[in-house]
């Protein structure tokens, strides 16, 4: 079965919340068109729609809320700087994700060699929410699972993590993820599959049909 079709039937949370079912991102594209042409008022609406998605993407990539907030600002500055180069008729979402990814990569390069972790970071990252209605045991189990997922996500190679986040959490198609990650669709599929395998091993869940490597 076509992987894109499968994702369309299983969208991520961001795309699921969209109001336009046929072209969920058409409004975003229209706003970006206007913004690139110099209509500054479009920026407010564009930011309103894009900022939460980019923040979640960057948060899942870097794992630190404060850093994700800074990177969102950086990404929007880059988008503002490059709006004149936005190709007419292009989709804004892959472009915005690619710019956000570049901001994250640049930050990681700058931070390389420096000690970036702190007690605050650890505290930030250990804040696992749990439902008030759940029993303490269920809350503890949920917290453990999420901790495990977070740890596994951190341990993944960056390329696998990016592919997995884009497909699983951001609800993008394989083709869109391939453009953002600057690689082939087949490579995106392999990276996401490897990430899934790592999660499956970490969580101890059995493989689904067709999920085993040959």
């Amino acid at each position, binding site marked *: 079965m076509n992987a894109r079709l*499968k994702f369309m039937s299983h969208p991520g949370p961001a795309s699921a919340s969209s109001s336009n079912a046929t072209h969920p991102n058409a409004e975003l594209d229209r706003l970006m068109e206007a913004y690139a042409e110099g209509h500054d008022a479009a920026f407010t609406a564009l930011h*309103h729609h894009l900022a939460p998605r980019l*923040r979640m993407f960057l948060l899942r990539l870097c794992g630190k809320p404060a850093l994700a907030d800074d990177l969102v600002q950086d990404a929007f500055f880059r988008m503002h700087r490059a709006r004149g180069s936005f190709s007419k008729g292009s989709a804004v979402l892959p472009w915005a994700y690619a710019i956000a990814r570049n901001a994250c990569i640049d930050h990681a390069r700058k931070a390389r060699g420096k000690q970036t972790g702190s007690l605050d970071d650890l505290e930030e990252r250990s804040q*696992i929410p749990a439902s008030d209605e759940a029993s303490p045991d269920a809350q503890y189990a949920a917290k453990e699972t999420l901790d495990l997922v977070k740890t596994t996500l951190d341990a993944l190679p960056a390329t696998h993590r990016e592919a997995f986040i884009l497909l699983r959490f951001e609800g993008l198609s394989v083709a869109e993820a391939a453009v953002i990650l600057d690689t082939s669709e087949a490579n995106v599929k392999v990276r996401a599959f490897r990430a899934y395998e790592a999660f499956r091993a970490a969580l101890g869940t059995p493989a689904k049909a*067709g999920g085993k490597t040959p």
Partner: protein
Amino acid sequence: MNSDFDFASLGDIPDPFAADQVASASAANPPDILSHGAPSGEPKVALQIHAPYTLSALGPMAASPTRRATHTRRLAAVAAALAVESAIIMFLGLRPPAELQLSRVMFGVALPLLGATLALGVVSATLRTRKAAWVVGAVATSMFALSCVLASGPGSSSLRGIVVCGILTIVLSIIPIATAVWAMRFAFATAVTAKTVAVGAACGIVAAAFIRLHCDNDDNWHVLMGHGAAVAFAAALAGIVGTRITRS
């Protein structure tokens, strides 16, 4: 990977950051855009962001060109590069008029210039993937190689001639590269290296085309190795240095 792997299975993995959706929703409050005295719709716009981190790191925001301003900037860059190249060739001296046959000008100069123009236009307008950028660069370079064959004529393939012409063409290629990279700064979010290398190769081809108006050696090897050196040089220079400027 098994080809029938159901990617919907990825949905089985819980989202450890699901609770942060609320915080992300509050991030939707947009930063202010101030037009700094310019009427609405003017390209000179500055973005003010309230995060102390960003403000301290970036200082006053630079103006952001709109699409029209970007196109104008690119056209100006092309015009400037062509004007400077022409001036340098006029300074060096045109080859004897008797050797400037129409067919030689058409195939030796116009054909590679056409390839370079196509490459620059396509790369700056529509390309999304790395593979496409490589293809565009390869097509432009092939058009240059084809021009060597179609406009071949008498000449020598001495090493000295190749080296002298190679150095001259490389020097000539620096202006187009500089203007092209300036005009395309922050332009590429994806496939940055491939696109910038394609732009660099196009700039090298421009220099290689112009040098044919000066160099009267039409030997295949001379043109391919001597003049073609600029194509390789420009592509490498753009790939190494230019990517830092063209990346957004």
